C-alpha cells in the first residue's frame, strides 16, 4: 500500500507528512505536481504550504496542475485522498470537497495548538478514532475559515474554541462518501510527544488503514 505525497511549487510540509506516515509504518513517495500518472499509488496526500504562491486564491492555480486529474480519478475510485491545510484549500478549489476557505475571521495568521473533537468516524481520517475523542494538534493558517453556502459538507472534526470563524467550527470536512477529507490543522505535526503532541497519530493511522481495500 503506497501513498503519494504531492509536491507543488511552494508546498512546504511534504517532509513532515512523509516522516509521520513512514514512522507509522506507511510506504510513501514524494511526487512532483507535473506527474501525470498515480496508477501505482493507493492513496494521496496534498500537504500544506503555499502551492503556486497562493496567487489569485489559495489552491486556485494548483487545482490545474497536471497531477490533479489523477487525484480526481483516485477520489472518484473511492481511494483515500487527504488534503492538509493548503491541501484542503486545493481540494475545495478542485470541487472535490464542498465549500471554500476564506481569511480567518479576525484576519490573524493563527499558529498555535488547537483542541478538536471527532464528530464523524466514517471518514478516511477519523476511522481509527472514537466519536467525541479530543485531539490536540497545531493549526497554522491564515485562510482557514471554511464557508459552505450549500451546507453539503460532512464535518469530521470540529474546533472546541472556534479560532477562525469556520462554519460549524469545522476543522476537517469530508465528501459524502468519506474518502476525500480536508483538515486545516496539521496531524503530521502531532505524531511525537517530544514535539508537543502525539494526538495526530490516530488520524494518520486511520488514513493508512483506509488504504487497504475493504
Amino acid at each position, binding site marked *: 500500500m503506497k501513498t503519494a505525497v504531492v509536491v507543488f511549487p511552494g508546498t512546504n510540509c511534504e517532509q513532515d507528512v512523509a516522516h509521520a506516515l513512514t514512522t507509522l509504518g506507511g510506504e510513501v513517495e514524494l511526487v512532483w505536481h507535473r506527474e501525470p500518472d498515480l496508477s501505482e499509488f493507493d492513496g494521496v496526500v496534498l500537504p500544506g504550504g503555499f502551492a503556486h504562491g497562493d496567487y*489569485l*486564491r489559495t489552491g*486556485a*492555480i494548483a487545482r*490545474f496542475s497536471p497531477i490533479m486529474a489523477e487525484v480526481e480519478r483516485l477520489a472518484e475510485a473511492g481511494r483515500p485522498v487527504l488534503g492538509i491545510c493548503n491541501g484542503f484549500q486545493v481540494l*475545495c*478549489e478542485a470541487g472535490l470537497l*464542498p*465549500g*471554500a476557505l*476564506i*481569511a*480567518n*475571521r*479576525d*484576519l490573524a495568521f493563527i499558529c498555535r495548538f488547537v483542541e478538536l473533537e471527532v464528530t464523524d468516524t466514517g471518514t478516511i481520517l477519523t476511522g481509527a478514532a472514537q466519536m467525541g475523542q479530543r485531539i490536540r494538534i497545531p493549526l497554522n493558517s491564515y485562510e482557514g*475559515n471554511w*464557508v459552505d*453556502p*450549500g451546507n453539503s459538507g460532512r464535518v469530521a472534526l470540529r474546533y472546541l474554541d472556534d479560532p477562525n*470563524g469556520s462554519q460549524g467550527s469545522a476543522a476537517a470536512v469530508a465528501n459524502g462518501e468519506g474518502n476525500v477529507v480536508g483538515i486545516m490543522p496539521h496531524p503530521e505535526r502531532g505524531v511525537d510527544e517530544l514535539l508537543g503532541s502525539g494526538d495526530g497519530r490516530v488520524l494518520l493511522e486511520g488514513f493508512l488503514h483506509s488504504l487497504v481495500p475493504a
Partner: protein
Amino acid sequence: MKVTVEITRRPEIADPQGSTIQRALHDLGHNAVMSVRVDRVIHLELDNEDPDAARARVEDMCRQVLANPVLEDFTVKVDG
C-alpha cells in the same frame, strides 16, 4: 483589446477585510460608513479584435479559474 474583470464576493459571504476597514473608518470618525466590501479587479490584454469574442473568452476564464463560484460573482468590461 483591453478587458477588465471585477470579481465580487457574494453579499452573504463574510468579508473580514471589509469589516476591519469599516471599524478603522469608524475609529477615524467616519461614522457614516454603513458597510465596506473589498473586491478584486483584474486587467487583461488580449490579442483578440472582436469585442464579443473577447468578452466570451474572458467569461470562460472567469468560470474556469478567475472567480470561485462558491464565493464570488464577476462582471466583464471590454474597454476596446
